[in-house]
């Protein structure tokens, strides 16, 4: 973990409710699955966000407006400086898959982008299953298509297949050995019940984000683990939902 001051390169809307924030700074030594915590003016706690892309000293996150803090974040401007804790949490384990399936639910698709990049760096083109509520929420589609074979589903069928990631997974025959999923807790739970051979990136309300407060401890088959420290990536077969 490091506390860094990063400069805002850009902060732009990808769709009505989703933004992309690009930061530039000294020393970004991170991999897919890890997250950062951003300090916002006038908010007490930092806000955790997965890295969506890491490239040399550029760090990209993709965030969805869900509350006061993320609403405020849309006002961040180019050249602003942000205090960011970097290198938080563990990483996805890429060794688990020869034929990976990446499953993203809504904004949970964000960390899968960096994961897809890393698989491509290993010469593996993953299958990518993305679920959104509706067409308006889709983001990064063209970018994902460059990195893998993409299936998109929307709850209302306004784009791609109609359904959610779990229903698609159950009905469509997708060839994969291990899946990597991030999205709403409900989705992750349904996935884990359906197939335990996967990795799940979890969320929890956090105070510190670096292991000091026990605010984010979940129960696993191997005892209590902190989402921010032993996680956010857990094996689908160990999480006790």
């Amino acid at each position, binding site marked *: 973990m490091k506390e860094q001051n990063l400069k805002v390169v850009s902060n732009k809307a990808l769709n009505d409710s989703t933004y992309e924030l690009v930061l530039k700074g000294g020393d970004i030594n991170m991999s897919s699955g890890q997250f950062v915590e951003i300090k916002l003016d006038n908010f*007490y706690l930092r806000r955790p966000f997965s890295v969506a892309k890491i490239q040399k000293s550029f760090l990209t996150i993709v965030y969805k407006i869900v509350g006061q803090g993320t609403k405020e974040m849309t006002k961040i401007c180019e050249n602003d400086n942000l205090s960011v804790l970097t290198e938080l949490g563990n990483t996805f384990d890429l060794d688990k898959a020869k034929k990976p399936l990446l499953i993203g639910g809504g904004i949970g698709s964000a960390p899968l982008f960096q994961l897809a990049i890393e698989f491509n760096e290993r010469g593996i083109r993953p299958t990518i299953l993305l679920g959104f509520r509706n067409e308006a929420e889709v983001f990064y589609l063209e970018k994902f298509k460059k990195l893998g074979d993409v299936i998109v589903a929307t709850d209302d069928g306004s784009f791609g297949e109609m359904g959610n990631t779990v229903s698609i997974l159950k009905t469509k025959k997708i060839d994969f050995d291990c899946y990597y999923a991030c999205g709403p807790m409900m989705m992750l739970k349904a996935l884990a019940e359906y197939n335990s051979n996967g990795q799940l990136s979890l969320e929890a309300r956090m105070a510190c984000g670096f292991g000091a407060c026990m605010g984010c401890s979940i129960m696993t088959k191997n005892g209590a683990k902190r989402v921010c420290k032993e996680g956010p990536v857990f094996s689908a077969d160990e999480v006790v939902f």
Partner: protein
Amino acid sequence: MNTKVKLFGHELKNPIIPASGTFGFGYEFAKLYDLNILGSMSLKGTTLEPRYGNPLPRIAECPAGLINAIGLQNPGVDKVLSEEIPKLDKVYSDKVIANVGGHSVSEYVETVAKFNECEKVFAVELNISCPNVKGGGMAFGTDPKIAENLVKEVKKHSLKPIIVKLSPNVTDIAEIAKAVCGGGADGVSLINTLVGMRFDLRTGRPIISVGSGGYSGVGVYPVALRMVYQVYKAVSVPIIGMGGVSSAYDVIEMMYAGATAVMVGSQNLIEPLASKHIAEQLPRVMEELKINRLEDIIGRAHNE
């Protein structure tokens, strides 16, 4: 600038002590900075048996702090003694304060007694004010008789000085302070968290899984200062002040109010280097305020 203070004959190089529950068992912070800049540290609340604590969410944000309802998650006293403290010992050379929670007098007594042989620990802080544990914790801290009796029993079996951590959720904290001193407390620490709540704007339901939790952070600072001041008037044992401290200026004010040492809690969570920064800032602030010996200012607010 002389930043030294003494607690029960034990000399601290400065009065800055990370507060229990906001610093884990310390060693994980050693990757961030050299912990030896800290006067001491108070370990995560420890119980006789391992505890998972409360379900999630355990954290809710507030405009000037946070609510937590960890519920005393800890690996149990045996593991604390055999694993956590040895790890800490490798990265921090001074002695520390153990923090003990419990559900019954016998649990407190047994847990405290386990620290008797632990050289790394120079005092035990008795948490009788945790609002997050049902049927225990805070109940011991809001009734003077129950508090006094608990301290009496614990003192019988402890070889270490006992610091009693007081709850701010009472009408008269001075009364409780007097009671625990009557029971033999060697010192008191305050304040623990204020009971607080937040609600989910969408569902209307409490955010914290168990409803309410403990509120801490800069928002509690004026209440903490007042209570330290009140307790200083009421008892003569050393006071460890805490609650919303976020700068060396705050440390000075706490000491004016009556604190011999000062704990830094929530600030560690939002600014990982907070305790270090405060310890570094302290001599500079002393110079600015023309304070040569920090011990001289303890209770200065009470001078006529």
